[in-house]
């Protein structure tokens, strides 16, 4: 499809209109990000004691060592041989049930503190995402409409890219959190010691590169919205967390963190920031960046407390600026503005206690704690006895 060239405008008109339009777009973006963060903080975190989606997880601690990789431009933060304590957290998105068909995540924090850190990274399974901008994410949230383990049905119907992202990212009955691949998807800034501006994407894979499990190679597009636990599935609600505890207890868990770089240019196509499109790996190969060696899992409370934020980054590695809610970088912009929600949740923990552990019972496909007796401190009756 070709389109006729737009009517010629003088550069003054263009500059004026673009400036005014750009200003308006940035205001809308700021209001959207702040408003969303406030809404989540008040309605989900403070009142509901919830993260936005990844409540069902397990945290662990260990050490991260930056590798000496001459293919990478030198960067003051990623100095070769640097070793830092770290925390990670694996989670299953949305549902309080490990056996559902769902997206799994891994967040990394280059410190052993539950909140503060010089570098945090949040990643999910799948090389592409289910949404691509702030506007898209808001639609994604609006169209969740979860019921009995089925969600995003309308969203997938209207957004084929979202459906493709789900097919790519959802894992069904993986053997372990450890053997999955996790991608940050939306690029970040990377300005090395050579002062050349670059964009970076991160991913984590098992150090021994064992094959990934849980991939559905022939997904049924009409059934992607159905994330329910298959009937007669023997796996329990916490099987992944238990497996991970066992694994770390026996042999530890070792990961390789990789980075993909591309040099910025003034005439870059905005599509390079699109998290629905992977970069060409022949032109922009993955480079080994760091080894994450996990030695101890954390208990439920510490897992709840451990919080990640992509604001925790050096300036040279931070979030790329976004111009509007349709800008692909607006997604990270919104993530970076979610600190208020984190603090609200931690405040709730401090005032009213932690949420109960997820019980090993047959109430499957839940994305919320069952029958909460109180709004403020949701708890599970059987766990109170």
């Amino acid at each position, binding site marked *: 499809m070709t*389109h006729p060239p737009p009517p010629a405008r003088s550069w003054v008109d263009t500059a004026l209109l673009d400036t005014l339009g750009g200003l308006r777009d940035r205001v809308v973006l700021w209001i959207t990000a702040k408003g969303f963060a406030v809404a989540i903080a008040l309605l989900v975190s403070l009142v509901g004691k919830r993260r936005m989606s990844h409540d069902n997880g397990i945290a662990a601690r260990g050490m991260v060592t930056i590798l000496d990789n001459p293919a990478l431009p030198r960067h003051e933060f990623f100095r070769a041989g640097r070793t830092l304590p770290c925390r990670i957290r694996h989670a299953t998105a949305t549902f309080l049930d490990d056996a559902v068909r769902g997206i799994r995540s891994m967040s990394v924090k280059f410190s052993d503190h539950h909140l503060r850190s010089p570098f945090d990274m949040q990643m999910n399974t799948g090389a592409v995402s289910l949404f691509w901008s702030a506007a898209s994410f808001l639609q994604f949230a609006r169209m969740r409409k979860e019921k009995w383990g089925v969600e995003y049905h309308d969203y997938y119907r209207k957004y084929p*890219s979202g459906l493709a992202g789900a097919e790519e990212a959802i894992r069904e009955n993986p053997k372990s959190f450890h053997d999955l691949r996790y991608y940050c998807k939306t690029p970040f800034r990377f300005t090395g010691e050579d002062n050349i501006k670059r964009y970076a994407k991160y991913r984590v894979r098992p150090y021994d590169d064992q094959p990934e499990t849980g991939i559905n190679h022939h997904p049924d597009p009409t059934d992607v919205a159905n994330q329910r636990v298959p009937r007669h599935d023997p796996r329990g609600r916490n099987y992944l967390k238990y497996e991970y505890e066992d694994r770390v207890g026996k042999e530890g868990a070792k990961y390789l963190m990789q980075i993909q770089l591309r040099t910025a240019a003034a005439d870059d196509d905005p599509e390079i920031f699109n998290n629905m499109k992977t970069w060409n790996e022949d032109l922009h190969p993955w480079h080994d960046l760091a080894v994450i060696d996990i030695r101890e899992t954390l208990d439920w409370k510490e897992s709840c407390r451990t919080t990640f934020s992509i604001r925790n980054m050096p300036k040279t590695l931070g979030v790329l600026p976004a111009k509007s809610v349709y800008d692909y970088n607006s997604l990270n912009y919104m993530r970076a503005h979610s600190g208020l929600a984190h603090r609200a949740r931690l405040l709730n923990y401090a005032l009213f206690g932690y949420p109960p552990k997820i019980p090993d019972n047959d109430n499957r496909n839940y994305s919320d704690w069952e029958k909460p007796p109180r709004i403020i401190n949701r708890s599970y009756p059987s766990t109170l006895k």
Partner: protein
Amino acid sequence: MQSDNPTGKRVILEVDNPVVDPRDVCAECLNRTKIRYPDGGNFFTPRLRSINHLEVGRSKIISSPVTIIVEYVVLLYQRTVEGVRRLLRQLFPRHPRIRGRNFSGASFVGRTTYAGRYDHGKPIHHLPVDIWARTWWGSWRHLASGVSGKDGTFRLPYDLREARSWAVRRIRAEVSQISFVYDQRDQPRPVHSVAESIHVPKKELTGMEYNLRDIQIGLWAYRRDTPIPRTYINDHDHDAPERYVQGRTDALQDQIIPIELTKLKHLAQLATAPESLSIPQIQADYPLNLTTCIENTLPPELKGYTRGDEFFGARMMNGMNAASFRPDPDHPHHYWMLYWGYQGYDHNDVFAFPTTEIKYSIRPGNHTPLPVEIIFTGALDAYHRDPWQQRRFRPGDGARWTYAKRVARSVGGLVAEVDDHFAHTHTNTEQYALAAFRNLRLNPVNWLMQPHLREVSLVDHTADRILVSQRHGYIPRASALTGLGIQQRVEDTMGVLDWKGREPMRVINDAHTYAKAENLFWNITREYVEEFFERNLEAIAEHWYEIYRMSEDMVNHSVRVFRSRIDLDRLDARERKMMEKRITYFESRYSFDPTLPRRTVNGELKILSPITESETFLDAQPGVLQNLKDWCVYVIHTATFMHTWVNEHQYEDIGEVLYSCLGLRFGEGPDGVLAPESDYRIAPDPVRATQMMWWSNLLSRTEYGFITRNEDRDVNPRFGEMLKAHEEEFRSYGVIVDDIEARTNI
């Protein structure tokens, strides 16, 4: 509708040394029976709502003054609304230019598919899809445009910022059908009519792909309740895939109201005092037709010409029947003509419908055929029902020869209506229209064919109800054939109608003006098609896929070959002989070539030959282009000339109840239908008589949409010019060029 023709429209009489030249009488009658309604009526003249409200019984006309006033107010309101809409369209025109600067990050995707239970999910290719935004102040912004692909899918890039602009109030996606209007010769202008419109919530546009999903459109579906390829129309006013143009309805209203009122008066009179109305009185209440006019005009010594041998032969050769003559192998200058009667079709026991074979003497030169023998096979009275009984009549048989000719005319009338009119021109054209409308869009053949294929599905749907159906139709009540019998007969007739190998009728002698006119029209049509292909060959080849899809639809939905359903080995000798004769005559009349390769689908040998079996022109076999040209010539010829001929001559040949009708009743007499016209017991009863006059007037007098007049500007003016260039030659064959319809719509 007929037009002025001072030289006489048809040469029909040949009388030695007449006191009054019958040709002058004929010319005068043709002029007098011309249709004219100079008075358009006054405000309270009854009106017809639309062709969809016609009934053989009581059509839904508006006659009450109160209703007329209310209807006028409603009409006024509708016109006001339409006027406001027209004003808004002028104030806020839709500029085709696509708005926006960045089309890389967002697109609408979806698929156009057929709606309905059976075609569900089947893609519709090459449908135009447009995305329009409406601003808060009413103006239109064109956001995206394109056409669906072969698999029905489309992807329309758009500028996200333009779509999400604060100025935009709402957005909609429109899927259109394309028709064409000729503002200039050879340069059609596409006109889009919205087939489906979908509201797109503006806030849901977030970039990347927005899925409009399967857009299900109720376009041109095949009926599944009949083996004949017919268009699915449940309700004329709601789910028909096309609409009559307003001019068609207006033409109908102008012509039919006086006829309708006459019929209503007769029906009311027959309901209250049936003895007060006779068939001659019914006849007298309707406008004169050719035969009544001639009989009224001729001097007493020439009365009865219309029942004479010359007139009989002339009408059979050049009238509505336009019969085919097969040479008698044993006698030079002798020919046979056949009308197939019951032949196992579902029928009633009230009307006679014997198989009729007529032998003519046809001399070379300008001589009309003279019947020399008529053979009936089948029952002629209520007491002898043996279907194989045979009766022969010759001119020396006196009055019985006259009776036999009347029976032959009536059998011929029914055969012409069912075989030649309904099956050959209506349903035959409809099967091509259906395949073409389902598949032709971007291919220039669409411009060529569309004006000739419009409205046939609509009028066939009406014909199903008012003429064919057992419950409401006229023919099952006024002839031997039941509704089922008509369906069977139409299927069999279509079983010999193939576009491939079709040739116009061979000219027998100089008096055979029908065949001459048909050949002339055929040749002009071929020339017109050749010219069109020369100009548009590249685009035709580029969009060959549409031709392939059309051919596939056409072939796969066509009826089985007539002869393939007959197992001659299971017939006894008598049946076999008759069937072989029938197959031979049938296939000869419609130029059917049984040796052509044909496709078998679901165990049925399909009648229609494929145009092409390749999706692309480059892969196609040699000869496919010629196939396509032949197909175009055949379909245009059938939809225009062939239909015009049989349709406009109806009122001449079955416009007098006692001269010819669709069925003579057996009556109670020992001779059955072999009785004089004064025996009304064998004629149609008065209700059927007035209904027959009504519909023969309806069909012949309400034509609309002519090639040269080009009322809707949808026919390439070049075609009209080519016909006009041969106007005098056509006139010499009794054909008025301006009266040839561009489409089959009545």
